[in-house]
């Protein structure tokens, strides 16, 4: 009976969604806002080949700032909730192959993450993806040798420093009279080169470091509360 009621609710919701599908007839051209962003003189004003990065960092940079704040709050609440248990655990020894390959892979993965967030304005990727890749390198290290202790102080210092630099760079644009989170505080450079697009690679690198440190903290918290049955 209860399930029938829920089924009726779901079907009603589906029939409410049906007009959205039937009235959608595909886009044959860009919307007016995107047309504004894609004009040649507006592109050369920002000078970033990846338009998604341009929108995330400059046009809608405040969204990114709020998102980083939400991630910071999540990490803080999880660190408050999950207390470390004082148990001794017995784990099986890792095999030699896995340990060696993890030792070999961790620096390469960290380098890949750095590549992803430095090249955020040229290729797909950016701070969030690069941060996730760095966090995955940390988790691989924890899996290969469970006895290593992460340096909490280092990660916290890294996180707060990058957050401060991010906000400082954003405010510097306002101080110079260009606008909050403007990217023209550094020279714009040549289109399509690594050192171009003004402050976008710098800001995105610090976002990447901050996100990487936060995600590593969350995963390390989840790892450190494991206990044996």
């Amino acid at each position: 009976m209860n399930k029938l009621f829920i089924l009726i609710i779901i079907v009603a919701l589906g029939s409410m969604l049906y007009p959205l599908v039937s009235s959608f007839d595909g886009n044959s051209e860009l919307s007016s806002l995107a047309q504004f962003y894609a004009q040649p003189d507006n592109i050369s004003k920002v000078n970033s080949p990846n338009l998604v990065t341009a929108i995330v960092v400059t046009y809608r940079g405040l969204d990114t700032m709020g998102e980083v704040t939400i991630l910071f709050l999540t990490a803080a609440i999880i660190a408050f909730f999950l207390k470390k248990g004082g148990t001794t655990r017995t784990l099986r020894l890792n095999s030699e192959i896995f340990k060696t390959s993890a030792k070999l892979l961790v620096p390469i993965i960290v380098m890949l993450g750095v590549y992803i967030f430095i090249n955020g304005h040229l290729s797909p990727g950016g701070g969030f993806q690069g941060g996730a890749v760095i966090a995955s390198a940390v988790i691989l290290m924890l899996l290969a040798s469970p006895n290593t202790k992460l340096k909490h102080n280092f990660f916290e210092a890294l996180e707060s420093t990058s957050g401060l630099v991010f906000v400082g760079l954003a405010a510097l644009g306002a101080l110079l009279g260009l606008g909050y989170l403007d990217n023209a505080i550094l020279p714009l450079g040549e289109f399509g080169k690594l050192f171009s697009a003004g402050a976008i690679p710098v800001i995105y690198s610090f976002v990447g470091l901050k996100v990487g440190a936060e995600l590593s903290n969350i995963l390390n918290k989840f790892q450190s509360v494991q206990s044996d049955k």
Partner: protein
Amino acid sequence: MELIGAIITLLGSFVLLVASIGLVRMPDVYNRLQVGTKATTLGTIMSLIGLVFLMPQWWGKLILLIFFVMMTSPVSAHVLARASYFIKIPFSSRTVVDKMKVNAKAMKIEHEKK
């Protein structure tokens, strides 16, 4: 040149097809693991090498991708095989040699203090 690359890519996709058929037909977990690692690694690498012939200016990223596949796929299969041996998944009836049994005493347990 381009035709050679396309044919190598096609052969790689055939190897992937063979791997998936073998995954369905093999009798026990360990055989399936072997098919799922060796054949798929070969198939993917052949497809990517065919792409190197097709697009020679993309070679940097493709070589990096091939390196990643060659580094990660066998290691994950090894860890998975070890785990499935330790949780005692039964062998097929035709398996005769079990070399892990000989040095099972060497597998010590690691103690972690917190």
